[in-house]
C-alpha cells in the first residue's frame, strides 16, 4: 500500500518539476521566483523516496504520526512562500509608482513639445 502511494506521489512531484522546468525554458516563469518551488519539490521527492526521514523528524519533535510532520512542513513552507510574495508585491508596487510618476512627467514634456511644434507651424 505504502509503496503505491510513494510511486504515485513521486510521479506527481516529478511531473510538477518537469512542468516548472519547461515553463522556465519557455520563459513563462522567472527562474529566480521558481527556485523556492523547485527546492520544495526536490525536498518532497527526497522524503518520498526515503520516508524514514519523516519518522526521524517526527520523533525529534515528539509528533505522534509522521503524516502530521508532513502537514506541518507543508504549512510552514506555504507561509514562507506567501510571505516572500508579499515582499515581492511591496517592491513591485514601489516600482510601479516610480514608473508611473516618471511616465507622467515625460508625457507632460511630450505634450508641451508637441504644442510648441504646432505653434511654430502655425
Amino acid at each position, binding site marked *: 500500500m505504502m509503496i503505491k502511494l510513494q510511486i504515485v506521489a513521486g510521479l506527481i512531484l516529478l511531473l510538477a518539476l518537469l512542468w516548472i522546468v519547461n515553463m522556465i525554458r519557455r520563459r513563462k516563469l522567472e527562474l529566480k521566483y521558481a527556485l523556492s518551488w523547485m527546492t520544495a519539490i526536490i525536498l518532497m521527492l527526497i522524503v518520498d523516496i526515503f520516508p524514514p526521514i519523516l519518522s526521524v523528524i517526527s520523533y525529534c519533535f515528539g509528533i505522534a504520526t509522521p503524516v502530521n510532520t508532513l502537514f506541518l512542513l507543508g504549512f510552514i513552507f506555504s507561509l514562507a512562500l506567501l510571505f516572500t510574495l508579499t515582499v515581492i508585491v511591496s517592491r513591485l508596487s514601489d516600482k510601479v*509608482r516610480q514608473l*508611473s*510618476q516618471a*511616465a*507622467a*512627467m515625460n*508625457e*507632460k514634456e511630450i505634450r508641451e513639445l508637441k504644442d510648441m511644434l504646432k505653434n511654430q507651424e502655425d
Partner: protein
Amino acid sequence: MKSLVIIPAYNEEKSIEKTVADIHTNAPDFDYIIVNDCSTDGTRALCEEHHLNVLHLPVNLGIGGAVQTGYAYADKNGYDIAVQFDGDGQHDAAFLQKMQAYLVQEQADMVIGSRFIRKEGFQSSGIRRIGIQYFSNLICFLTGNRITDPTSGMRMANRKVIQLFMESYPKDYPEPESVVTILKKEMKVMEYPVIMRERTEGTSSISPVKSVYYMIKVTLAIFMEKIRRV
C-alpha cells in the same frame, strides 16, 4: 522665490477649474500643477481643453503617490516652496501668501494650515474631530510637538522637505505620518490658522468603513515612523 501649488485631483472635473481660478486670483505669485491621478471622469479632457498645467498619471496611485508626483515636479523645476492644496474646493487660496510669509519669517521647514487654531470655518464633523484630536495627542506624546491639525491637506514645504517627500512618501493617508517623519528629523513644523470650507464636490476619501482601517493604519504608521532610523 518660486512657489508651486500641488493640486492632487481624482475625479474633480466639477471643481478643478474653480480651484485654479481661485489660485490665479488670490495667489497670483504661485504656479500650480494639477496631478490627475488617473481620473475616470472628464478631468483629463477638461484639463487639456483649458490648457491647464497638468500631469496625468497613467495608473491610479492614490493620494500619497499623486502628491509625491507633485513634489517630484517641484524639485525637477527648481521650486523653493511647494504647497499641497485640495482640488475639491475645501481650501482657500487667499491663505497661501500669508502661509508663505509665515514660513519665511519663522524659518520653518513646513507650515500646516490648521482649522483648529482660531476654530473658524468648517470644523469637520464631531466624530472626525475626535480622530484628529487623537492623532494630535499621539504625535505630541511621541515627538513632544503639538500639531493641532495633523490631518490637514493644506501643507507648505521648503526645499528640504520637498526633497525628503520626493524620496519617500506614504501611499495612503499620508498626512499625520509624514508630519512625524519631518519632526523626527528635527525640522521645524509650524501651523498657520486657516479657514476651510465644507467640500463642494466629491466625497471624502475616508468612508465610514475605511475609517477603522484609517485609524489603525495611521497609528501603526506613526509608531513605525518613530522607531525607523533617520
